[in-house]
């Protein structure tokens, strides 16, 4: 794989000084624990955060001290109260002298040793979780490439490499479904860049450095995946050009039979690229086309070319026309209801890229290499599609956007909005927060920007705590219509004050996908009716304006909430607004 170009560590060290003191809206505190010297990682993380408009405070703890830092309740670690803690451990420190001389003890003892080390880490993590709400990203260990047994290593029962495989597998198992703990595949990181590069013996011997300085920026880049996902800063959509991007050549000039797209080079590079795109589509990344072409010619290739991997059904929208690409891009964002800052753009033409990055700098325009063989690996280097959890909604997103396309068609053919909404046959099911819905509830609070009254962010653990609290009411809305299931798209959190017969709406949000169909009204109506049933006489709410949440500005006044200072108050003087075209159920 082509490796991403990263500046030297000295660049980050110098740059970190110049960005200190700059402040962005998004903030994160990162703690780093490690079993070896990892100087420079702090600076690289801070600089990379600043590049993504995130203010990052870091704290690096003494190497090899992580046991004390975690066990000591009054340690600097807990005083710092990080949002994310990276704990980076290496194989030598886990295996101790067995790393060099594993065969001084019999296989059974080696097993016992690994059992004990796994238990040590599981206990340490348990203590950590009891003391802090910080996310913990723990590394696994890189598998040693050398064995004193040479070619006989693989015949050896529970040999050196198997010890580490087993250690890694058991750490994975231990934390697979833990919402607070993530295992970073450090072994893959070392494999990607090569053990002989990542471990520079000179630096190791001089300074106990086990990730050489040249690879610290690469490590920081991979760890940024967690930082961005934790803040909900991720990209959702890949917009693609066609000619020389999805296939080789120009469909309008070379024709259907002559474009490069086949099982052998040069056409194979494009198939390879499309296969990686398809896999991203299946994890929930939206695909769209923005191409200057004759629509019928391009569509024929997409529909009928035998080696197209991606077909019409995979694209949420296709802008194939002769308008300028920048207007097309804006239309795509509008039609899909996504921010321009959630788009990644692939185009082989440097001039188009230049124009796009000038006109819409929020879009991540990829500097595509001239050689199409490198397209797939370029795509695989992009670290912006991460979410901390994968929900069913993620996996079905592509399908949902296709259904959305059908809705747009219906809207076009309907005489007016009311008529369209009636024909949609919308059904909303209000659900409680439970094990099935909590991951998605947290995800929506972290990601939703537009229709979100207060933009309060809650991690999965926070939602779990809220769900246990009897003074809170927390739930979500699943929406369906005649074209399909949109999954869980709405969330509300209410603080109940029984003494004063008052409710306070802490959070009210709706995924931008389903905005403007009265679902928000059905949800609000549900909350107000529910409150009335419980004898509430006053429902208070807030609208905290941000750069993005203008779409929900009118929700409260439309329901007859009156502004009192910073809050909005509803006192049942006007009847609860009805939403007749929506069928509402409770689960």
């Amino acid at each position, binding site marked *: 794989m082509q490796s991403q170009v990263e500046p*030297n*560590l*000295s660049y980050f*060290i*110098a740059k970190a*000084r110049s960005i200190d003191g700059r402040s962005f809206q998004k903030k994160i505190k990162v703690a780093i624990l490690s079993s070896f010297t990892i*100087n*420079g990682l702090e600076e690289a993380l801070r600089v990379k955060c600043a590049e993504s408009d995130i203010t990052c405070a870091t704290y690096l703890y003494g190497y090899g001290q992580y046991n004390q830092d975690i066990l000591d309740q009054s340690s600097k670690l807990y005083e710092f109260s990080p949002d994310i803690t990276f704990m980076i451990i290496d194989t030598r420190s886990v295996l101790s002298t067995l790393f060099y001389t594993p065969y001084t003890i019999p296989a059974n003892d080696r097993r016992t040793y690994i059992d004990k080390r796994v238990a040590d880490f599981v206990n340490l993590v348990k203590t950590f979780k009891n003391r802090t709400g910080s996310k913990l990203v723990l590394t696994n260990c890189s598998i040693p490439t050398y064995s004193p047994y040479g070619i006989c290593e693989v015949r050896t029962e529970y040999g050196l490499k198997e010890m580490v495989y087993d250690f890694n597998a058991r750490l994975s198992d231990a934390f697979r479904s833990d919402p607070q703990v993530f295992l970073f595949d450090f072994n893959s990181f070392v494999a990607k860049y090569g053990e002989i590069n990542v471990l520079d013996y*000179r*630096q190791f*011997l*001089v*300074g106990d*450095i086990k990730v*050489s*300085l*040249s690879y610290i920026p690469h490590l920081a880049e991979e760890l940024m995946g967690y930082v961005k996902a934790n803040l909900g800063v991720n990209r959702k959509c890949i917009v693609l050009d066609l000619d020389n991007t999805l296939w080789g050549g120009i469909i309008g000039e070379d024709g259907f039979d002559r474009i490069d797209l086949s099982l052998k080079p040069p056409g194979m590079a494009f198939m390879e690229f499309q296969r990686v795109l398809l896999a991203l589509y299946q994890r929930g990344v939206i695909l769209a086309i923005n191409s200057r072409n004759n629509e019928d010619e391009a569509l024929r290739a997409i529909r009928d070319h035998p080696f197209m991997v991606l077909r019409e059904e995979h694209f949420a929208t296709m802008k194939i026309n002769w308008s300028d690409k920048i207007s097309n891009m804006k239309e795509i964002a509008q039609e899909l209801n996504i921010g321009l800052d959630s788009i990644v753009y692939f185009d082989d033409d440097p001039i188009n890229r230049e124009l796009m990055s000038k006109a819409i700098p929020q879009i991540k325009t990829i500097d595509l290499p001239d050689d199409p063989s490198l397209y797939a690996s370029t795509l695989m280097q992009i670290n912006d599609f991460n979410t901390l959890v994968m929900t069913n909604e993620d996996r079905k997103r592509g399908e949902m956007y296709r259904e959305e396309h059908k809705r747009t068609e219906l809207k076009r053919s309907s005489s007016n909005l009311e008529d369209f909404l009636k024909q949609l046959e919308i059904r909303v099911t209000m659900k409680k927060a439970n094990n099935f819905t909590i991951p998605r509830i947290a995800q929506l609070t972290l990601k939703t920007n537009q229709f979100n009254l207060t933009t309060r962010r809650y991690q999965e653990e926070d939602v779990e705590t809220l769900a246990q609290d009897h003074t809170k009411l927390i739930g979500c809305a699943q929406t369906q219509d005649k074209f399909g299931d949109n999954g869980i798209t709405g969330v509300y959190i209410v603080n109940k004050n029984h003494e004063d017969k008052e409710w306070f709406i802490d959070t009210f949000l709706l995924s931008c996908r389903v905005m403007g169909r009265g679902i928000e009204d059905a949800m609000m109506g549900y909350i107000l009716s529910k409150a009335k049933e419980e004898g509430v006489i006053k429902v208070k709410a807030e609208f905290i304006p941000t750069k993005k949440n203008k779409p929900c500005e009118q929700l409260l006044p439309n329901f007859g909430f009156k502004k009192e200072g910073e809050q909005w108050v509803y006192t049942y003087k006007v009847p609860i607004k009805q939403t007749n075209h929506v069928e509402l159920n409770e689960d």
Partner: protein
Amino acid sequence: MSSNLLDIVANVMEVQVSQIDDESGPETIENWDSFRGLILFEELESKFNVKFTLN
């Protein structure tokens, strides 16, 4: 020393180029700790395509 080399040393050690001369080292420059020393190695190796040994 060439000016390019001086620039690299000054940049890594966070001092003025004028403060660097042939005698500069950990004893004469306060910022020159072992970590910066290693960064300097890395910079020089990548800029001049050379390899240092530990001796």
